[in-house]
């Protein structure tokens, strides 16, 4: 297995709050990697650091062979890292299909002049984006809603659309933040299925989730954070047995 | 030469203290309540004219007339809130920009018709001065500074320590949540807004009395200056707004002293932009989501 994403002594402080404190971890290519921890442990903050949404206080982040510490989000995305947000962030006033099309931004080249001239480059790009966009919507079972405004979707659909949009980036690694939050068991199963399917197709998945059924059922490896500090990293079985993890997070 | 700069500095402080006084009410309405307003100057001047009307037309005692204007402008503030904001509380703030611009145009023109088009003179409320060395300090100037200080502390106390005040702060962050803990959102917004208006009118009266002149057309410029002071100091901070006012006054006057009088406002706005670029939340403000 080769490392795809890793950090070294990663820290993020907000004034006195050490949201992420000296975290070392690494994700192997092709696995499903879970991140758990009590509320406020620093999981979302970690995602924000990895994707360039927040600048790091200290430490380094590596993606494949290069360092990506403090790269701006759009560059990180270009390298092949896509994410979803804990608080769903869709382009609310845009149609579902348009939301997905934006995901193809990095893979198309049309510039303003092309658009004005309506040349072949524009036509090719638009055609490609349209077709592939529809394909992605089909994958997440949302083809029938392609012309709805994103804001009018139900919660579960919004989550699915966010994943579809992230997939449009053609990521090597996908970071999802609590994809099953607010879903009923039935809907949760659908999301799990989708993520597992993606993983089979070769996308590395990093998932934050509080639903232990989801985490324990599908993760190859789990990182446990507590108060910004790494508590443990290991397989589901290892983590579940770890007394510190039980004490801090799992209970019983 | 030194004396020259000293007196320009003093001019700046004088003018700054007026900006500062005007900025307090603006800061309450705009910074704390989050109500965008570009009619503030017009509303303030309207309020001062109400006082002027009592004094000059109805012949009341000057101080009485001005005091009488305050409760009336409080009620007027309620009306303004109803017209410009009530329906748009859940809408984008940019709509308020247009409603207040529209209302400002309306009020300014109406004032010209009601009160006449020309400048009007208001006598000084408190006559007299003290001399310190070469400097003459008028009582009215001292009054302005003292009231500014009183208002900062009173308003701070109000917002941090009284029930209504904390309610106003809370509703400015999340109106639904405020309702759900029992804040009468409608009344609180109206109250806060009117309080801001009254503070502004009070400032306007001091200003009119200091310069001995008011005109319906003074509104926009006045509003723009109060606005600049508030943004400069940081929209969330009331003391910041006051300091912003002083900085603005001093910078403008030094600009006149050092460059030329034509560049007075240019300098003010350049400083505004620089401050925003370097510290978007203003000199003393907290980072807010606006």
């Amino acid at each position: 297995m080769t490392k795809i994403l890793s950090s070294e002594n990663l820290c993020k402080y907000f004034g006195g709050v050490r949201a992420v404190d000296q975290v070392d971890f690494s994700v192997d290519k092709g696995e499903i990697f879970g991140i758990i921890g009590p509320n406020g442990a620093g999981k979302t903050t970690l995602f924000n650091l990895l994707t360039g949404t927040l600048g790091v206080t200290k430490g380094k982040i590596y993606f494949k062979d290069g360092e990506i510490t403090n790269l701006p989000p759009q560059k990180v995305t270009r390298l092949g890292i896509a994410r979803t947000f804990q608080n769903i962030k869709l382009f609310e006033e845009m149609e579902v299909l348009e939301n997905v099309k934006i995901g193809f931004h990095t893979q198309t080249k049309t510039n303003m002049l092309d658009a004005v001239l309506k040349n072949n480059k524009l036509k090719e790009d638009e055609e490609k984006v349209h077709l592939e966009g529809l394909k992605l919507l089909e994958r997440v079972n949302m083809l029938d809603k392609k012309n709805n405004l994103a804001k009018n979707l139900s919660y579960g659909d919004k989550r699915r659309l966010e994943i579809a949009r992230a997939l449009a980036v053609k990521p090597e690694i996908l970071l999802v933040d609590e994809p099953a939050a607010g879903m009923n068991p039935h809907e949760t199963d659908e999301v799990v299925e989708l993520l597992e399917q993606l993983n089979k197709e070769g996308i590395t998945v990093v998932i934050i989730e509080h639903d232990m059924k989801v985490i324990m059922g599908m993760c190859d490896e789990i990182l446990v954070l507590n108060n910004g500090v790494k508590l443990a990293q290991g397989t589901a079985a290892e983590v579940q047995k770890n007394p510190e993890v039980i004490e801090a997070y799992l209970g019983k | 030469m030194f004396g020259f700069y000293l007196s320009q500095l003093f001019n700046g402080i004088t003018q700054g203290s007026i900006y500062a006084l005007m900025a307090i009410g603006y800061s309450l309405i705009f910074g704390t309540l989050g109500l965008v307003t570009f009619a503030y100057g017009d509303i303030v001047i309207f309020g001062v004219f109400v006082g002027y009307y009592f004094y000059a037309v109805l012949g009341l005692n000057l101080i009485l007339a001005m005091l009488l204007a305050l409760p009336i402008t409080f009620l007027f503030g309620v009306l303004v809130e109803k017209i410009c904001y009530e329906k748009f509380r859940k809408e984008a703030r940019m709509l308020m920009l247009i409603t207040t611009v529209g209302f400002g145009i309306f009020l300014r023109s109406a004032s010209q018709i009601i009160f006449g088009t020309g400048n009007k003179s208001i006598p000084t409320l408190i006559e007299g001065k003290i001399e310190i060395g070469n400097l003459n300090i008028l009582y009215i100037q001292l009054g302005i500074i003292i009231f500014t200080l009183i208002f900062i502390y009173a308003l701070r106390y109000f917002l941090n320590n009284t029930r209504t005040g904390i309610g106003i702060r809370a509703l400015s962050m999340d109106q639904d949540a405020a309702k759900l803990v029992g804040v009468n959102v409608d009344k609180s917004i109206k109250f806060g807004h009117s309080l801001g208006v009254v503070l502004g009118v009070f400032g306007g009266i001091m200003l009119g009395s200091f310069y001995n002149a008011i005109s319906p057309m003074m509104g926009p410029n006045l509003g723009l200056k109060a606005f600049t002071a508030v943004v400069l100091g940081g929209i969330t901070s009331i003391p910041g707004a006051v300091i912003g006012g002083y900085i603005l006054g001093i910078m403008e006057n030094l600009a006149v002293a050092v460059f030329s009088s034509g560049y007075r406002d240019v300098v003010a706005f350049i400083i505004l932009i620089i401050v925003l670029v370097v510290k978007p939340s203003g000199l003393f403000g907290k980072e807010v989501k606006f």
Partner: protein
Amino acid sequence: MLKAEDLKIHYGHVEAVKGISFEVEAGEIVTIIGSNGAGKSSTLRGISNIEDKAGGKVIFQGEDITSLPAHEIVDKGICHVPEGRHIFSQLTVEENLYMGSYSKTDQTKAEYQDKLARMYDIFPRLKERRNQDGGNLSGGEQQMLAIARGLMMDPVIMMLDEPSLGLAPLLVEQIIKLIKEINEDLGTTILLVEQNARKALSIAHRGYVMETGNIIMSDRREKLINDPKLAEAYLGVG
């Protein structure tokens, strides 16, 4: 104690709640379950009147509160902990808790301090963060704060909208237990909306099931838990 009759809520052309009726008896824990977009949150928002109702009536302790303004409904002792937390982001944790007692005008300082201490007992995490702005808390911390803020009101009835959303497992247990305790120890009536139906039913006395704006089922908890259709759609296996 709380009764809704033919409640309707519309958003433009969307009919989110299509005329539902239900009631909650004093001392009960009643849960409303249903999939996303069923209209559960809208129902609660309609009761506390932060959303305009298109029709229907709400009766509380025999009094018609249908069109009372939201803050007066709070005064009556109805507390609504909304979905999505709605923390006052630039107030500190402690100020947020103070806001919870906003409607308690007749309460003494000592009583207030007492209650505050109790909240910090229940949620030690909040005590650690007491001077931090609410907006900078993590999702779960905010959820705790929202519940604690509601409890500060000493409500007669507490309407909780998905209180377990985004919480760590340990906390979900805690909160479910807490709700039961509030109900049993303080006698607070509870109306609980939950996505986590199994957990909700484990403490509820009765439940309603909503689907696309209608109540499609209502029964005592034992019956609901054992209903096969329900189990498949909402409870999940295991």
